[in-house]
Structures are given as structure tokens and as C-alpha cells.
């Protein structure tokens, strides 16, 4: 091929302030932690609350990450996502309660194996439920937000009633495995072992998702599909299969989040998923539709803020996350890191 005529590229390096702009949401996390350090009188209390907030944020991220991709890639508002959380929690709890020898022994490998089995079963069950949900509930209403809201809300109610039928109407206690009970002391602060584990799982999940989305062809297809699904098809990719895969993966992650939440609260109810969904929606909206990074930042902000405010002014904790959402949307109406524009 002949060489193009030389002409100066029109791209110029933007100023520093402009280059830092995309990173501003990331800076909110250390800024909030710093504000907490100033406002909370004791350093040990601040450390305990920070780990608790990060753990809570990681669990919300686990649940919300799949939902934001489904929202961005498929333009589907799935109010039924809470069903996958509850279903995953009940299946995971059933596995844990069926393995008293492994979960109840003061033996780290046995405890870890029991939790791993519970997580695997919960993810498989929630993923399977997601597959059926996509096929029979969501697929007929692609393209219609109003119908999606009505139909997925209906699906959520049916799923909750199914949980009542299978596991009964009472709440179920889910004791943590022996080695995950209690706390470790660090710098004078008591840090719950389970919360540290939740932080580690969330971090691994986030890094894994980033690698998948940034370094693999499947990730490229998903990121491109979030932005312009029509063009992805025109390049020769069967986007419908990717839709289903992402929906099932998102459901499985909600199941994982359900197990983590169950062990966090140590009690489960059929309506637990529905209750968490308020926080999940806040995170998805302030993070920016379709953005895993935005979802991660949003989840950590929600977790940290809720814990700090609950300590400083308990009555204000109920509205702290709504106030956060209002503030973020006034600053960035499309969310912190929007990938798709809200329609």
C-alpha cells in the first residue's frame, strides 16, 4: 500500500488537570477515608469502621458488578436481580448447614473447603436461575423498560415465594465456620476475620474482572457491546450469546454475593435480596451504567460512608447513601465513570 501524505496529527496532549479528570472518582475513596480519620476521634475505631466499610463495599460490588454489565450491555433493568442474591444465599446456607463437620471444626482447610463448596453451589444455582430468568422472563421484553420493570418485579416475587415453598417462611441462622469467627487485633483495632476475607474476595474479583475485560477477547466484546452492540454484530460476533453469558455470570456473582452477605449477617430471609437491591441500584447509578470500575468505586464509597455515618450520627445513616447519590449525580449526571449514556 502506498504511504499516506504526511500531515501533522491534530491530537495534542491535554493539560494536566484534564488528564487527571478521569481519576477524580478514584480520589474520592482516600478523600472519604481521610475525612473519616479527621472526624472519628479514635484511630482504632476509624480502622475498624474502615475495614467494615470496605468489606460491605466489596460485597455490594460483588452483587452489583454483574448488574451494571447487564444494564450496560443489554439495556435491561432487572429488578429481579435480588432473587439471585436470596437464592444464592439459601443454596449456600443449605450446603454449609449440611456440612457441620467441615464448617464447625476449628480447622482452617476444612472451613475454607466448606465455604468454597457453598460458594460454588450458590453460584451454580443462581447462574442456572439467571439462565431461566433471561430465557423466559427477560428475553420477551428486550427493548421495553416499562415491561422489564413490571416483569422482573413479578419474577422477583415468584422467586421469593419459591424460596418460601422450598425453605419455609422463617429466617435461617447461618453460623460462620469456626476459623472465620472472631477478630484479629491490629494497631489496637479489632478487625473481624470474616470482613478481612470479604475484602480479599472482593479485591480478587475486581482484579479478575478487570483482567477479563481488559486482556481477553471476550472482555473486548463485552466492553464494545456495552457501547455499541449493533457494531459488534456487524463485526461478526453473535452478541446474543454474549448477552446470555453476561446475564448468567451476573446472576452467579449475585449468588456469590448472597453467600457472602449471609455469612456477614449470619441470618437469611427470602426478602434479603430485595433489601440489598436499594444499595445495589445506588451503586450502579453513581458508578455509571455499564462501568465495572465505577461500580467498584461506588460500592466502596457506599460501604465506607454508611459505616462512618452510622458511627458518627446513627440517625443520618439511613439517608447517607441517598445524599451521596444526589451529590454524585449533581457533579456527574451520568455517574462517575459512565460507559453508556442513560436513555
Amino acid at each position: 500500500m502506498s504511504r499516506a501524505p504526511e500531515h501533522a496529527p491534530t491530537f495534542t496532549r491535554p493539560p494536566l488537570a484534564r488528564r487527571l479528570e478521569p481519576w477524580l472518582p478514584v480520589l474520592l475513596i482516600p478523600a472519604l477515608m481521610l475525612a473519616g480519620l479527621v472526624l472519628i476521634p479514635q484511630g482504632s475505631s476509624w480502622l475498624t469502621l474502615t475495614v467494615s466499610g470496605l468489606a460491605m463495599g466489596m460485597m455490594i460490588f460483588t452483587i452489583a458488578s454483574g448488574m451494571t454489565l447487564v444494564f450496560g450491555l443489554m439495556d435491561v433493568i432487572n429488578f429481579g436481580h435480588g432473587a439471585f442474591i436470596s437464592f444464592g444465599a439459601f443454596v449456600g446456607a443449605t450446603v454449609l448447614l449440611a456440612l457441620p463437620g467441615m464448617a464447625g471444626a476449628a480447622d482452617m482447610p476444612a472451613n475454607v473447603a466448606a465455604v468454597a463448596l457453598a460458594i460454588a453451589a450458590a453460584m451454580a444455582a443462581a447462574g442456572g436461575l439467571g439462565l431461566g430468568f433471561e430465557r423466559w422472563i427477560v428475553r420477551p421484553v428486550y427493548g421495553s423498560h416499562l415491561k422489564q420493570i413490571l416483569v422482573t418485579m413479578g419474577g422477583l416475587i415468584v422467586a421469593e415465594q419459591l424460596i418460601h415453598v422450598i425453605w419455609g417462611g422463617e429466617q435461617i441462622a447461618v453460623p460462620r465456620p469456626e476459623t472465620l469467627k472472631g477478630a484479629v487485633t491490629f494497631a489496637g483495632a479489632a478487625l473481624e476475620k470474616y470482613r478481612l476475607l470479604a475484602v480479599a474476595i472482593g479485591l480478587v474479583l475486581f482484579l479478575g474482572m478487570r483482567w477479563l475485560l481488559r486482556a481477553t477477547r471476550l472482555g473486548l466484546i463485552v466492553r464494545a457491546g456495552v457501547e455499541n452492540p449493533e457494531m459488534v454484530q456487524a463485526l461478526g460476533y453473535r452478541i446474543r450469546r454474549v448477552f446470555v453469558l453476561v446475564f448468567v455470570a451476573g446472576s452467579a456473582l449475585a449468588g456469590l454475593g448472597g453467600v457472602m452477605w449471609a455469612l456477614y449477617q449470619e441470618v437469611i430471609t427470602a426478602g434479603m435480596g430485595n433489601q440489598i437491591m436499594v444499595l445495589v441500584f445506588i451503586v450502579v447509578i453513581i458508578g455509571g451504567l455499564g462501568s465495572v470500575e465505577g461500580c467498584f468505586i461506588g460500592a466502596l464509597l457506599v460501604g465506607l460512608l454508611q459505616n462512618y455515618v452510622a458511627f458518627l450520627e446513627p440517625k443520618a445513616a439511613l439517608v447517607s447513601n441517598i445524599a451521596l447519590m444526589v451529590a454524585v449525580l449533581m457533579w456527574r449526571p451520568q455517574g462517575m465513570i459512565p460507559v453508556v449514556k442513560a436513555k
Partner: protein
Amino acid sequence: MSEPILTLRSVATDIGRYHILHDVSFSVPRGEVTMLLGRNGAGKTTTLRTIMGLWRARTGQVLFADEDIAALPTAEISRRGIAYVPEDMGIFSDLTVGENLRLAAISGPMDKARLAWITAAFPPLKTFWDSAAGTLSGGQKQMLSVARAMIEERRLYLIDEPSKGLAPAIVTTLARALKDLKRAGATILLVEQNFALSRALGDGAVVMEDGRTVWSGRMADLAADAALQGRLLGMEGAA
């Protein structure tokens, strides 16, 4: 004129309640550049989108290599060997230049020789390889859009107004690349409003008006007939 690789027979397409294409029939000969011309709103973009399956033909046939592809999903049409450059360029702004091209190389890793060929034609793509495509200028985005279609050899290229709104220097770069693609034996169906560019690139021409094909023939004949240009394309000073 060689045998056609693409033939449209009496294609009609609706968008919602509106009948956009009424009776579109033409052929694209293998190894030639066919220009799809017409005034704004004539139905050129809808024709390309109908071929790609992005709008469904209500009636008629879209024959590609003797197979009717009118009812196939878009991905299957693309996999038959058709590349598409849409009017809005369709680049993925959140992906880097390199990722846009890697995604377009659907059969596997990018061929190094072909990539070198493309980056020689479009040097800014190499310069901004790791930059998000959304940060490129309009001309660079168009280069990326065309490069993405060229990253693998295809049996047919559908290109929608590549010169639209671009600076003359960028149009010259794109024209050179398309000429090279033509020299390599590619079959191209090109929508273009720039008549000088059409004359330079086209072997054949199809003219549309109000959702119908109203003329088809050799580009040289159209270019030589000012009265015909005036009548079909409304070109001032042509008639």
C-alpha cells in the same frame, strides 16, 4: 464487467411505520468499486444497513455469492465476508485504537504484514495506538473505522460516506487507501456524496431516489454526461 458478488432484487425496507426502500435492484460486480449515489434521504444508508441485516427487508432478495442473506442475523452476514463502515463510523470510544483493530480481526491475531500496510496508509493510528479511540480527531476516527474494515481480507466492503465532514488532507489519505484496496482486487460498494472522489474511485454507479434505484451503469458514462448528473443528482452547473 465481471459476475456479480452481490445482487439486490426488488428490495423494500420499512423503518417503523415508514416505507424507506420501495424497489431497490442492482448488482455489485466482483473486483469492482460500485458507487451508490443519490441525494440526501434517497435511501443509500438504509440500503447498506439492509444488506448488513441491521434493518430487515420486508420483501425482495439480497443475494450474496448466490445465497439469499436477507433473513440471516447480522453476525452471520458479516461472517460470510462482508465488512461494514457505517456513516457514524461506529468506533468504540472506550477501547484503544489497538483494541478496536484487534476486535475487528475476528479470525484470530492480526496479520502483521496487513497491519503494517494499514498503518503505513494511516500513520496516526500507529502514533495513537494505545490511546482511547474516543480521544481521536474526526478524521482519525474515520481512518480507524476504515482500517477496522480492512484489517482482514473480506469479499465485500460496504463503506458509507467516508469523506463526510473531513478536511481535504484526510480525504486524500482515505482516497489513497481506498484506491490501494481497489488495486488489491477488493469489491467495494461505496456511498459517497463527493462526486470528484466517486469519479476517481468508481467503476460502476447506482443512483437512488426516494427509496428506488433510478439508474445504474458505468461511472465513466455518468461522469461524462453532465445532463445526466444534473437530472439524477441535482448537481448545480452539471446540466
